[in-house]
């Protein structure tokens, strides 16, 4: 048979085309909303991936370390591996008079070889290549002179007592060789993600190495392919771990090389006089004569100093490395021995003192080996003195005091004292006569006289007496005193290490030199490349992953479009139902001809699927334009304007298919119930085309709804009056809750009114009579009236109700607010070593002003005085700051390595800010961070935890510490709308446990009054210009963070408004349905003499009341709750109310158009319901 159900469905579809097109429109809108959201997500992900591709250029994988290692490793590997030295710098453009024209901080300076640029042109002349972004920012062109301010490199930790606290920056004058074109593949090169366009400067690697004193060293390797990291790690040597192992012969050769000026392999007297300790020289000369050959010296070393010596570049060896060294010694069959050397400012007894003396802490093995009696009673600290003729100390001096600077300090170092028990005098010869016990320290160990020392700590050479100089001449760095190793580590141990050297001795007094390679191999085998960042990682993969794992904008926009999608689907349901109801008799006929309800349901669904498929196809096509519109909305509302240039439309066929499929499924689900219901209806009723019309109810129910509704409104009123405290979110939630209750309450009262109104008797004519008739008509099907009004009311309420969630930093003042009463947030790219307890910061700033204003010293002094005055009226707190990925919601990339802040005790004592949740009680919630044992406690901004880190209150989170190890932290507190939305907060103590090498403070919070704040900002910018300063007002920072949430709210409101528009179309659809249902009534009214306008205005009045009540109840409920809230800006509220009014007028207009068909209805046909 040719005729089939397929043909029937197609014929039905074509016949009812107009009705189907209306349903199709609803499906299309739903598809556009859903698919559009997916396309936005795709576009963002694609755009971010595009940024990664642009940033990486030819680079595929990389080693990125905080520590320096050998550049020669690059050439030892297969493939194209580029050695790179990468630092952050500040670049200044100064004019001929050396006045500052422009400055950029946070600039990436790359020391590279020519081959870095691959086939593109590299360095043409001497000078620097800068990228187009930096060139534009500073207004540079080829040939211009710039000054690069680089962080001065030092091996010695600056916070150790031997570290220099100032002289942090080195300036380097360069000329601009060329400026990269914006299309150059390496123009925006960066090894970190993010949408920001980097500021880059490229210099020759060798020149940068020379400038920094880092010859042969780099901290980055770049590869254009994936690299087997294990192969690379096998090539690492101790030098790459910052360690150096020397044999006796090696140390001898080093000394020869250092002193042998004529390079003849023999040291003459004039070459070594004064440079080697006389006591040692006497010994050597006695054995080998005055002309000391290299071989002799090597023999002397191997006989008298028969140990391998391990030292660290950073002067101190970390505990973990010490542990591994001992393990390596054990495996190599050697004995290891630790030494901790320190400098005492004073060694004194009751009567006399000697200044600036080396003291060595030795372990039991070495003490025994070199004959030191360091056994003492418990609680005592024994001390053995080295014998020298001019020593003022005698055995009868029972107590000896050491004075020394604290081993770790920022700012001015503090002097500490410790009393020891004088327990003896050591031998004056043998292995104790070994100046190599102290590691080299330029400025101290290389000086010919004590007087010529140039130490980094406060030093008074007036204290030096001739006997002290004599000691230096005779013994150089041979310690004046020896104490127990444990005591030395207790007094002088630091987070950087507590051992200055480790010696490896042969067990059987044999030669150790032959075992050096074995020790080295064993030790390297124990060390972890991850601890030094010496691992090749697939940079491209990681960055792409981060770009794809950020905030899911598909889901976000689906959420924003919720109302739009809901309205569209409701419209589909309404229109399809209307469409069906016009064909009820046909459905009845099919049933009467023997079709089962299931068959009829399926036929109707097939027709719907056909409509949905076409609607989804059209919707999918249109979604591209819609998505483009959404992208424009995103670009204009997003606070970071960089997004405007990078966000591009990208269409993925997969998303179009998924969006279309979801739409089809949702459309079917929406109509499934009503289709099923109709197909199971009474055949006769369907044949007659009957639709259930009048709703019956008893009068008794209305009182319940009335009093129930009134009660809810009163509860809402009470809730609005309750004080809500400072927590912004709790306030907004309570508003939402009370507003919601008011909304439901008003709706209940509305329902009670509708239930009651049918009992009214119309006694008057004119507008009042019409009005009552309209109300009675509404009450015929009050559930439909409630649904229509309720949807509009909910939409109107939500659009206004989200407004209090909008962030307004003007309201954030005071200690317990988002700013914590701070006015300025200062960051420097070079950490500063300053102390709150002393004047170090003031001095530092004065020096900074002098440097920045070097052309006008008087101005610098005036500014310094003014700045001191402002500082005396302000409070400031320095914070430890570990740079990394921004974890705030403004970062579109998933953070891999979050920024961390270490809070000092002074911050935690001060307190302040607002908490969303805190685990702990007591005066200050910040004390929770100071918990020492167990998992490290941390705080983070609530939104950051939820949206960026995908964690929550009380949850454990993994951080990677300095040694590349995963460390658990627990979020014991969540902050609410704080200044710290980009970072995770730890106590300073815990921060330094995780990142012990981190030094100085690079974030500062200032609390000053509104009057002083602007000038303070200006002066700080000048004073800290050389340190890559970036200052933001606290209020502006909060505004920036709030702008992201506000952007989301704006997008939600914009899309919600479109949903509301669609909602008014839905109301019009119910109006059309109502007109159709009541066509018999229309015919009768016309037969009774109502003209067209009378009939139209009756319906119009009915639906105007419906619209007005819906929008009015929603807006009213929202405003009812918001009035008690403090709001600094009422403009937005008025704007939202105007939108509601606009919706009302628009809805009326749509109704007027929909009622046009009444005009043409034939009276008789209407009455016959044809």
């Amino acid at each position, binding site marked *: *048979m*040719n*005729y*089939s*159900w397929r*043909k*029937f469905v197609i*014929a*039905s579809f*074509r*016949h*009812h085309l107009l009705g189907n097109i209306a349903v199709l429109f609803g499906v299309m809108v739903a598809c556009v909303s859903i698919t559009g959201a997916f396309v936005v997500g795709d576009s963002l992900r694609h755009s971010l991936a595009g940024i990664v591709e642009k940033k990486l250029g030819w680079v595929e994988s990389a080693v990125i370390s905080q520590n320096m290692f050998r550049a020669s490793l690059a050439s030892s590997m297969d493939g194209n591996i580029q050695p790179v030295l990468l630092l952050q710098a500040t670049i200044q453009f100064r004019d001929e008079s050396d006045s500052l024209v422009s400055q950029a901080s946070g600039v990436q300076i790359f020391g590279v070889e020519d081959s870095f640029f691959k086939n593109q042109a590299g360095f043409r002349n001497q000078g620097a290549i800068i990228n187009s972004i930096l060139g534009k920012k500073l207004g540079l062109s080829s040939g211009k002179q710039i000054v690069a301010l680089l962080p001065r490199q030092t091996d010695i930790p600056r916070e150790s007592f031997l570290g220099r606290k100032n002289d942090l920056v080195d300036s380097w004058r360069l000329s601009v060789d060329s400026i990269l074109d914006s299309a150059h593949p390496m123009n925006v090169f960066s090894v970190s993600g993010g949408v920001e366009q980097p500021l880059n400067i490229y210099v020759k690697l060798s020149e940068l190495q020379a400038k920094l004193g880092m010859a042969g060293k780099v901290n980055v390797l770049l590869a254009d392919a994936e690299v087997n990291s294990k192969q690379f790690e096998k090539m690492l040597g101790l030098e790459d771990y910052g360690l150096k192992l020397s044999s006796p012969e090696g140390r001898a050769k080093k000394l020869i090389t250092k002193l042998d000026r004529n390079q003849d392999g023999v040291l003459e007297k004039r070459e070594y006089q004064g440079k080697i300790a006389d006591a040692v020289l006497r010994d050597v000369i006695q054995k080998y004569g005055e002309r000391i050959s290299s071989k002799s010296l090597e023999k002397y070393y191997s006989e008298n100093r028969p140990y391998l010596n391990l030292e660290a570049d950073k002067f101190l060896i970390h505990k973990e490395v010490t542990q591994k060294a001992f393990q390596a010694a054990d495996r190599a069959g050697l004995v290891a021995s630790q030494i901790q050397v320190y400098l005492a400012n004073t060694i004194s007894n009751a009567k006399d003192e000697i200044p600036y003396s080396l003291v060595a802490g030795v372990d039991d093995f070495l003490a025994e080996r070199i004959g030191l009696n360091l056994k003492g009673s418990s609680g005592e600290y024994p001390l053995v003195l080295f014998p020298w003729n001019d020593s003022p100390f005698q055995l009868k001096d029972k107590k000896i005091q050491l004075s020394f600077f604290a081993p770790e300090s920022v700012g001015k170092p503090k002097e500490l004292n410790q009393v020891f028990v004088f327990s003896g005098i050591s031998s004056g010869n043998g292995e104790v006569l070994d100046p190599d016990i102290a590691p080299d320290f330029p400025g101290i160990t290389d000086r010919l006289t004590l007087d010529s020392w140039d130490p980094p700590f406060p030093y008074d050479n007036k204290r030096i007496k001739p006997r002290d100089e004599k000691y230096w001449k005779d013994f150089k760095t041979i310690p004046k005193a020896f104490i127990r190793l444990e005591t030395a580590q207790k007094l002088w141990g630091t987070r950087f290490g507590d051992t200055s050297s480790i010696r490896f001795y042969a067990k059987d007094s044999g030669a150790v030199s032959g075992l050096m390679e074995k020790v080295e191999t064993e030790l390297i085998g124990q060390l972890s490349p991850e601890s030094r960042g010496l691992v090749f990682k697939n940079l491209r993969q990681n960055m792409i992953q981060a770009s794809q794992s950020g905030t899911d904008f598909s889901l976000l926009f689906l959420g924003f479009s919720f109302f739009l999608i809901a309205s569209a689907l409701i419209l589909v349901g309404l229109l399809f139902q209307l469409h069906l109801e016009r064909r009820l*008799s*046909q459905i*009845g*006929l*099919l*049933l*009467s*001809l*023997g*079709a*089962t*309800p299931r*068959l009829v349901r399926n036929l109707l669904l097939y027709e719907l699927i056909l409509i949905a498929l076409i609607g989804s196809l059209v919707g999918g096509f249109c979604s591209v334009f819609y998505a483009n519109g959404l992208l424009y909305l995103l670009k204009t509302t997003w606070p970071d304007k960089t997004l405007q240039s990078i966000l591009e439309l990208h269409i993925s066929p997969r998303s179009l298919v998924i969006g279309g499929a979801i739409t089809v499924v949702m459309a079917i689900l929406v109509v499934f119930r009503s289709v099923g219901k109709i197909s199971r209806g009474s*055949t*006769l009723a369907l*044949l007659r085309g009957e639709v259930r019309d009048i709703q*019956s109810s008893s009068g008794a129910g209305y009182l319940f709804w009335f009093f129930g509704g009134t009660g809810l409104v009163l509860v809402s009123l009470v809730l609005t009056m309750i004080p809500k405290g400072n927590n912004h979110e709790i306030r907004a939630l309570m508003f939402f809750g009370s507003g919601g209750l008011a909304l439901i309450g008003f709706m209940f009262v509305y329902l009670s009114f509708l239930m009651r109104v049918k009992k009214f008797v119309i006694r008057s004519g004119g507008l009042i009579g019409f009005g009552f008739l309209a109300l009675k008509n509404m009450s015929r099907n009050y559930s439909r009236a409630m649904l229509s009004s309720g949807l509009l009311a909910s939409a109107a309420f939500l659009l206004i109700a989200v407004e209090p969630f909008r962030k307004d930093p003007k309201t954030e003042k005071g200690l317990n607010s988002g700013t914590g009463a701070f006015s300025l947030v200062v960051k420097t790219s070079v950490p500063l070593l300053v102390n709150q307890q002393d004047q170090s910061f003031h001095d530092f700033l004065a020096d900074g002003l002098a440097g920045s204003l070097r052309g006008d010293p008087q101005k610098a002094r005036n500014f310094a005085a003014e700045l001191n005055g402002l500082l005396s009226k302000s409070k400031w707190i320095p914070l430890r700051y570990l740079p990394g990925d921004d974890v705030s919601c403004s970062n579109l990339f998933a953070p891999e390595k979050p920024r961390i802040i270490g809070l000092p005790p002074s911050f935690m004592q001060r307190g302040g800010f607002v908490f969303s949740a805190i685990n702990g009680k007591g005066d200050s919630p910040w004390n929770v961070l100071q918990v020492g044992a167990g998992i490290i406690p941390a705080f983070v901004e609530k939104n950051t935890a939820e949206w960026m880190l995908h964690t929550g209150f009380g949850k454990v989170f993994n951080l990677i510490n300095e040694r590349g190890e995963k460390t658990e932290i627990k979020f014991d507190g969540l902050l609410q709308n704080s200044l710290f939305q980009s970072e995770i907060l730890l106590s300073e103590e815990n921060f330094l446990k995780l990142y012990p090498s981190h030094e100085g403070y690079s974030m500062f919070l200032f609390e000053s009054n509104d009057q002083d704040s602007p000038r303070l900002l200006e002066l700080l910018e000048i004073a800290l210009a050389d340190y890559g300063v970036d200052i933001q007002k606290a209020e502006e920072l909060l505004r920036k963070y709030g702008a992201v949430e506000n952007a989301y709210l704006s997008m939600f409101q914009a899309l919600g408004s479109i949903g509301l528009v669609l909602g008014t179309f839905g109301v019009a659809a119910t109006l059309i349905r109502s007109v159709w249902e009541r066509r018999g009534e229309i015919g009768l009214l016309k037969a009774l003499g109502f003209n067209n306008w009378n009939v139209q205005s009756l319906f119009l009045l009915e639906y105007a009341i419906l619209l007005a009540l819906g929008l009015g109840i929603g807006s009213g409920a929202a405003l009812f709750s918001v009035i008690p809230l403090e709001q600094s800006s009422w403009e937005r509220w008025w704007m939202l109310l105007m939108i509601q009014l606009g919706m009302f007028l628009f809805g009326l207009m749509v109704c007027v158009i929909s009622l046009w068909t009444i005009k043409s209805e034939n009276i008789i046909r209407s009455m016959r319901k044809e």
Partner: protein
Amino acid sequence: MSLQVQQLCKEFFTESGSVKVLTGIDFSLDDGASLSIMGPSGSGKSTLLHILGGLEKPSSGNYLLDGKNPLDGDEQSLALFRNQKVGFVFQDHHLLPQCTVLENVLIPALVSQTREDPETWALDLLGRVGLSHRMTHFPSELSGGERQRVAVARALFMKPRILLADEPTGNLDRKNAESVMDLLIKLHREENNILIVVTHSPELAAKFPVQKIMQDGVLLDQGKN
């Protein structure tokens, strides 16, 4: 007897109380018999037809076709009964506007394809109602009488045992009414089915050998013709 109705009653329940529409209906008919029923509006004539056509169920009583109650059974068997055993002609023709004349006749075959070559049979029926030349036309292109003829052809398509017509000529003018009624009777005789017609017109009712009157839900004899 092929069709038997015994003490059939139908009651509707409303808010105002129950309404007895049919009371103790009794009659029986053989194949080839026909019956007209007249009566005032609201007397229950259409309700009786709806029950006989499987569109309603009685409140009590028996309805047997070939000794079996066709209304016993599930929704599926009831649908099958309506499809294969009953042909219904409504006052309002209820032709599907989206289907051609031929397709309207073929609709019952879509439900259960029991006939071989249904199109030939449909064309034959259309020829017998005088509309084979309009088979590709849509209902909107036909007159009232022509539409009703198509409805008659559709009702006969499955060769039903019972042919029911509820005021089939109610919307037609006198000439068309007579023509459609004559057609109905002719085809009934040709197919030898049981024909029951409800009509307001005494002239049309008189064409039937058996005429009954429905009064207040009770079926009374008019008298034999």
